Every structure is written in C-alpha cells, then in structure tokens.
C-alpha cells in the first residue's frame, strides 16, 4: 500500500482555505436561490397568468439542462456576448443561484399549497392584505413543513459546488487537484477534501435540525 499523508501536510492550510472560498459562494448562492425561488413560487400560485407562465418556463429550463452546462454558458457567454469579463465567483453565484431557485420554487410552491386553505380564509376575513398574509401567516407555516426538503436542496448545492472547479474557481475541489498535480499524488488530497466536504455537510445538517426544533415550539 502506497499511502503517505505526510506529503500533503505543507498544503493543508492551502486546502483549508478552500473551505471558506467554497462557503463564500455557496452561502451567497443559497440566498440568491432562496429569494428568487420564493418569488417564483409566489408567481406560480398567483393569479397573474403571464407571471405563472414565466415561472414555469424558468423552472423547466433550469431543471431541464445540466448545471455544469449552465455554469459554463454563464462563464463563457458573458464575455462573448456582453463583452463583460465575468469573474468565476460571480459566474458561480449566478449559475448555482439561478439553478437552485428552480428547485427551491417547486419546494416552496408545494409547501404553500400544503398550508390549510382555512389559514388564507381566516387572514382574508380579518382584512389582512395579501402581501402581509403571505409573509407573516402562510410562508412561516409553509417553511416549517418544507424545511427538510429545503435542507436537502442546500446540502446538494453545497456538494455540487465542486463543479465550479471546472471554471477555474479555486474552491475546495480545485485545490485538491492543484495539490495533487504538485505532488504527483492525487489520492491523499482528494481524501482530505472529501473529509472537509463531509464535515461541512454535517454542520449544515446540525443547523437544519436545530432550526427544525426551534420551529416546532408551537406544537
């Protein structure tokens, strides 16, 4: 067996830095995906036909094509079409954020529709305007129901973030490859970042469980 972890020791700080680099764009992408996904979900359940159509087409496109393709189109098309030299960071946020929004919008739509219709009626009967009803009454209840599905989406996004290495964004995955190339040994750095990804997901899962517990106080 030819395993030698001592060789990667000098590169450990370099790889650990990748955690923050990955987290940076993952966090922003999750926020972008969540906000845009919520808006799309509201379009889907709303009464304005054209907005419903837009949201459906959006979802169909972003769910119907590979994420890596979307990412590359954003990264390479922006300079070519708009003459704008897009940074890998911005391309990554856009690619993941826009993609995640499609999935999140479906999760939230289902969550809103699962809230008892009586809640809407009670809010209407009290004279609560639609916007406030959605923000304060319906969405909080919907979020509680869909939290597990939403956490699942965030976990997927965090892991899939590794494909930004293809647009030369120096994330965790890319750093493992760089170290591998320097050492002519790939297995150790890959195993090391695998452990880092796993730790990140564990922390994310724990946060999810914690939020779930907090939301359940009303039961």
């Amino acid at each position, binding site marked *: 067996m030819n395993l030698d972890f001592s060789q990667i020791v000098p590169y450990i700080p370099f790889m650990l830095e990748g955690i923050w680099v990955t987290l940076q764009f993952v966090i922003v992408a999750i926020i972008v995906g969540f906000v845009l996904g919520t808006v799309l979900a509201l379009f889907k359940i709303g009464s304005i036909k054209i907005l419903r159509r837009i949201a459906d087409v959006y979802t169909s496109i972003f769910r119907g094509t590979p994420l890596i393709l979307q990412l590359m189109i954003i990264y390479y098309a922006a300079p070519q079409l708009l003459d704008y030299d897009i940074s890998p960071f911005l391309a990554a946020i856009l690619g993941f954020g826009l993609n995640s929004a499609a999935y999140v919008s479906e999760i939230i739509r289902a969550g809103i529709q699962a809230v*008892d219709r*009586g*809640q809407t*009626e*009670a809010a*209407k*009967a*009290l*004279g*609560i*305007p*639609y916007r*406030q009803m959605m923000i*304060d*009454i319906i969405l*909080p*209840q919907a979020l*509680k129901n869909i939290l597990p599905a939403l956490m699942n989406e965030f976990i997927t996004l965090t892991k899939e973030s590794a494909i930004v290495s293809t647009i030369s964004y120096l994330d965790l995955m890319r750093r493992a490859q760089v170290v591998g190339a320097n050492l002519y040994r790939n297995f150790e750095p890959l195993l090391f970042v695998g452990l880092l990804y796993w730790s990140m997901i564990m922390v994310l899962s724990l946060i999810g469980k914690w939020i779930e517990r907090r*939301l359940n*106080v*009303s*039961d």
Partner: protein
Amino acid sequence: MIKVEHLSKTFGNNEVLKDISIEINKGEVVSIIGPSGSGKSTFLRCINLLEQPSKGKIFVSGQDLTESKTNVTKAREKIGMVFQHFHLFPHLTVLENLTYAPTKVKKMTREEAEEKGRTLLARVGLAEKETAYPNSLSGGQKQRVAIARALAMEPELMLFDEPTSALDPEMVKEVLDVMKDLAHSGITMLVVTHEMGFAREVGDQVLFLDEGRLVETGEPKAFFENPQSERAKDFLAKIL
C-alpha cells in the same frame, strides 16, 4: 346594516344560491338554519366575499361589496368571521393571534392591542392562556380564542359559520355561552347553526334555507311553533 339583493351563486353548473334577498338591521342576531347542502354556509361566505356572488348585490353598512371598485380587504376589517374549524394561526401564541391583525391592519400600537387582547381573552374566560399555542388548546378553547380574535378588530358585524359543529358535545356550551353574551352586547350577528336552542332563545330572526332558496324568515318563536312552509315543517319535524 346588511342588505342582500337577488344574490345567486353557482359553482360550475351547480346553482347553490338562488335569488336571495334579505335585509338585516343593526344589532339583530340572525340564525341561518336548514338541511346540509342548502347553501347556508355559502350564503354566509358571500357576505364577506369569501365567495364571490355570481349575481346580485351585497350592501354592508351602506357599502356595495360587489361593486368592482370597493376595497374588499378594507371592508372585511368591519366584518368578523368565526369558522367551523377555528383556523387559528398555529405558529402564533394565543395573544399574538389576537394582536396580529389590529397591529398590522389597523395600525394599533402593540401595547394598545395587547391590552385589548387581554381584555377579550378575559371576556371569553381564557386569560391564563395568552402565551399558549393554539395546538395545546381544546376545541372549545380554540373557538373562544377565534371569537376573541375576530372581536379584536372591533367589527360591526360578526359571521359565525357552524361554530359548534366541530366540537365535542361537552364543549358546545362554553362556546354558545360566549356567543349569547355577545348577542346581548348589541353587535349584529349572523349565525349558521344546527343549535336550534340557540336559534330559538337568542336569535331575533331565523332564516330557513333549502336547496339554495330562502324559504322562510320569521321571528324564532313564530317559526319554531308555527312554521309556514311545508319544507320548514318537515325539517323541524325531523330534528326536534
């Protein structure tokens, strides 16, 4: 207070309300009775436009709610509603259920709304439950909170849609007692109910609906002792 003119409502091909006209005076307590499927609840839900009437006009305090430029959301502030299945907001505490609409819609200050909320909770006998969540309450308690929640908006008119139908028998009385108390306070009330005792003793007027038609109206005493229509006689014979 309320004037309904030629109200009709259809769901697809199903005509559930047929040309109903009625006037209800301020302070009146009106019981709406009839067999199930007669359109009682739909009629009630048309009054605050939870159901959009297919035809006809509905005036509440002189305002035509069916007029397209009427701000329905605004008009509903004056019309409280109590549902069969309570529909309390489960993620808010009892007191928050009472203060949410007054603070957000009527722009009452928090202190003011909480004080009012506490007064109302005391009135329905649930002062000690203000920090509880709805899911920890019994059905009767939930319904009393729901009544207090509607009252917190200081409505001129209260609609009750079978308020005791989902309750265990031993909890019906506590809710009816609150409603009786309310009836004596002078607020206008429309109550869809199967509680004939309530309709007879507390109501000022009875509306009897059958198959979407307003078959008979009258004072409770006259209606229960000497119903005029065959359909009402038949109905009363079956349930009394």
